């Protein structure tokens, strides 16, 4: 799974556009700038920022957070003449539909939660539900044992737990409608995804020894790559959240040779529910048969 995602590129662009900062003031040519030149320079930067924000908004408006069920052939069509085009033929032998996710850095978390929640609405008697509920109830203490402040995490914890408990009361026929509402907004959904990030961070920190060879300083990694809104998810975070909750994912990763590589996490010894995801470098969508 590569790190060169389009979501990250978008963020990179945003950063690049957000002006020169205090750190560059020591350069000599700047010292000679007049106030007028500085003002002009700042105006240019402001215009640039506005343009970037406008682009970002346009992207947002075009793409819902989670789409309705869409034929997989639509995606194939979009990748026409692309090295990944043939991957969709292979994928079509096992899947026929896809829910597309907005490219906002939260695509993995949103797709994963959607499918997991959907599974438990459809299968309320699955014994995994109670197991996960137990893990979730204990997660506040787990986080606090790692040094998280109760008041900083409990709003996220309470909301996530409430919504997880509520899944059992949702009519199966209303599953998609309920989840599209719950996970597609800039309020509750932000809190729910944020808590999923805390759960990933929790596992990463509890098992720091296992991860530090891959991610470096685990606390720093959690701060920069896990716990920030809109920072996208890589394999360590996926391993962490699936292990913490005791869930699985099946990632169908497109290959440059037109094939599909299936990555199961956990790899073996697991027979419970797996979220079915499509991975095209930098982005996850949710797959359906």
């Amino acid at each position: 799974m590569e790190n060169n995602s389009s979501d990250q590129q978008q963020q990179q662009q945003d950063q690049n556009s957000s002006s020169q900062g205090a750190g560059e003031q020591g350069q000599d040519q700047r010292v000679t700038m007049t106030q007028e030149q500085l003002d002009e320079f700042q105006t240019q930067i402001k215009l640039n920022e506005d343009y970037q924000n406008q682009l970002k908004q346009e992207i947002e408006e075009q793409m819902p957070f989670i789409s309705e069920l869409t034929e997989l052939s639509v995606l194939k069509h979009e990748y026409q003449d692309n090295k990944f085009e043939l991957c969709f033929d292979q994928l079509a032998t096992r899947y026929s539909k896809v829910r597309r996710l907005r490219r906002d850095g939260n695509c993995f978390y949103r797709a994963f939660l959607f499918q997991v929640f959907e599974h438990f609405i459809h299968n309320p008697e699955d014994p995994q539900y109670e197991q996960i509920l137990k893990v979730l109830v204990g997660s506040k203490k787990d986080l606090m044992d790692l040094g998280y402040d109760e008041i900083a995490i409990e709003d996220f914890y309470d909301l996530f737990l409430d919504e997880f408990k509520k899944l059992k009361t949702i009519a199966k026929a209303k599953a998609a409608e309920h989840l599209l509402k719950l996970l597609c907004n800039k309020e509750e959904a932000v809190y729910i995804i944020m808590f999923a990030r805390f759960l990933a961070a929790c596992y990463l920190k509890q098992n720091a020894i296992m991860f530090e060879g891959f991610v470096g300083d685990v606390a720093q990694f959690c701060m920069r790559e896990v716990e920030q809104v809109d920072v996208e998810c890589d394999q360590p975070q996926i391993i962490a959240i699936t292990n913490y909750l005791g869930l699985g994912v099946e990632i169908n990763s497109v290959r440059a040779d037109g094939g599909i590589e299936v990555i199961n996490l956990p790899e073996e010894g697991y027979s419970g529910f797996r979220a079915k995801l499509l991975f095209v470098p930098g982005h996850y969508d949710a797959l359906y048969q």
Partner: protein
Amino acid sequence: MQARCLGRLKKEAEDIRNNFDGVLELDIKDESQMCWHVRFRGAEGSVYNGEVFTLQFKFSEDYPIESPEVIFVGIPPEHEHVYSNGYICLSTLYSDWTPALKVSAVTMSILSMLSSAVVKQKPANDAQAVVWMKNKSPKKVNWMFEDDKC
């Protein structure tokens, strides 16, 4: 979002009053509670021993998802990461912000940043930077963090 933000701020105000009594002094400046002043004293044994500083926290209704805007008001400490306009070069206030942080934690990390200074000195580029940052929120400045503290 605003109801959640206000609920969180209420808890944080209690946190400061109950758990940081005698260390941090909270002054809620604004009716709607979205602007706070937090006063603290330079640590004993540090170069700021006894000096009193005030941090201003401005919260948007997206707090704590969005970081608060944090600056020194009044006379800022003379420190290589604090500009004369009160702006602070500290990554946790900007790119490294996470909602797992809170006002008391931010203030204590700034106090710790001050305590580790061995000499009082302004940032090398203070005069130019202050002109540059005029009318710009500290959150819009493209900070270049030099080490773990800045």
